[in-house]
């Protein structure tokens, strides 16, 4: 049972992830863009953030740079959604506080739940 923030600009995917994680018993809040995400991040102080890298207006990496979780919220775990061509972004995201990444297109609901559970359970970043 954790507080999870989902940051994903595609509504249909956002809703699917919300459904999956709520079913697991987590408390879920959502944001569809980086700006809103910053707001919710500061407000809700989630235990875990599911962060999409590719978003219009503000990318996942930009969000991390502005939110600076390693400094401001060191206890929060960040999982980033990525695709194959995001190698540079993935590296940048890890530099700014991400602890794990999953390939968005390849995660079934079961897999998503598993990764979230493992990340929450792990004590180190």
């Amino acid at each position, binding site marked *: 049972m954790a507080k999870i923030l989902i940051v994903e600009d*595609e509504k*249909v*995917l956002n809703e*699917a*992830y919300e*459904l*999956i994680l709520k*079913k697991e018993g987590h408390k879920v809040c959502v944001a569809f863009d980086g700006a809103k995400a910053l707001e919710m991040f500061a407000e809700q102080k989630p235990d875990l953030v599911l962060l999409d890298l590719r978003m219009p207006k503000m990318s996942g990496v930009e969000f991390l740079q502005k939110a600076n979780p390693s400094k401001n919220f060191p206890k929060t775990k960040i999982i980033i959604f990525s*695709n*194959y*061509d995001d*190698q*540079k972004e993935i590296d940048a995201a890890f530099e700014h506080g991400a602890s794990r990444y999953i390939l*968005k*297109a*390849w995660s*079934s*609901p*079961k897999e998503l739940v598993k990764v979230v559970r493992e990340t929450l359970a792990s004590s180190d970043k």
Partner: protein
Amino acid sequence: MYYKKVTKRAKVVKNYSKISLPLMHNLTELVPGMVALYNIRTGEYIYVNQSIKKILGYSPNDFMEKGIEFVASLVHPIDLPKIIKKNDEALKRANSVGQTTNDSDPIVSFEYRMLHKNGSWVWLHTDGMVYSRTSKGKVEQIVNVSMDITKRKKTEEDLLKLTTELVALNTSKDEFVAITSHQLRTPATAVKQYLGLLLEGYTDKVTEGQKVFLDLAYENNERQLHIVDEILKITQLDLDKVQLRPKIVNISKVVDEAVDALQNNFRSKQQKIFIKKPPSIVKAFVDVEHLRTAIENTLENASQYSYEGRKIAVTLEDVESVVNIKITDEGVGIDSSDFSKLFQKFSRIPNPLSVEAGGTGLGLYWARKVVQLHKGDITVESKVGKGSSFTISIPKKNKASKRA
């Protein structure tokens, strides 16, 4: 031959009237280019042939009366300084070298524009030859033979323009493919999620019948996602966005890993793999992930196009500065006329195994491009009905481009 004879008779030419002028005019008329003889000390044009009329619209007299200053005034302002410099350097060389038997060879060549009498620009190619020297051996007279190359220059310009356009078009095509593939991926991912939710019991329990259809849908959705992945990987290559991370690696290990990754393919067709390696360790500077995938793609090909129970041999060769990974199968083989198609995108060569379109037809294209990024190549030898042999060659110490 002609030039040598003329040089010998340099002194005779001064007495023009001694040679039949009509004969000379007739002969030089036949030369498709302009022939001009001028004195570099006086700047005087001693002789210009009739072709000048065709090429520049002027008469020989126009040049002969007005001399080199007039001629220079017709040269394109951008080209003139270069010509002057080249000419001066050539003269210096010719003067320091002195009379040689090679005076008939051009001492200088240049391409430049001159203004036609009608106001249009003409591209010329001129060769300058030493015609006569002073008693002290210094160059006195030069013969310039000039050809009109305007047509050729225009063709070159047009070609360059076309090539630039084509390259731009190709890039925009690749960008379009990348964007569209990304866009396809999103709804395909959503489908995956919702099918997953159905299959994993997030709503009402599904019946057996429903599960069968849902499984099929899920499987095909995975295929969709796989194809999109492949296309995106390839557009990355085509758009020169691939970042290689090479390091010194034991190639033998990479080969083993690649073979391992395809165990299911081999097992399902009862194909036997034989790996042959040299006694000592073979190392090379490569990007492990990319090389392994290239080997996997080639192995997958070998498996797909071989019958059941056949053998596939993987040979690692250390050839001084190069590493060879040879994959030989006893499969359907490829006709040599199809070799060029093999490494193209989406190419499908008809064959007796009529392999169903399980793959994307992109494996070999990707493999070769990646190997080429390592400054290597993939070559093929094959005989229809007997089998094929693909060789991945990579220089051990290569400046593997981090970006294509």
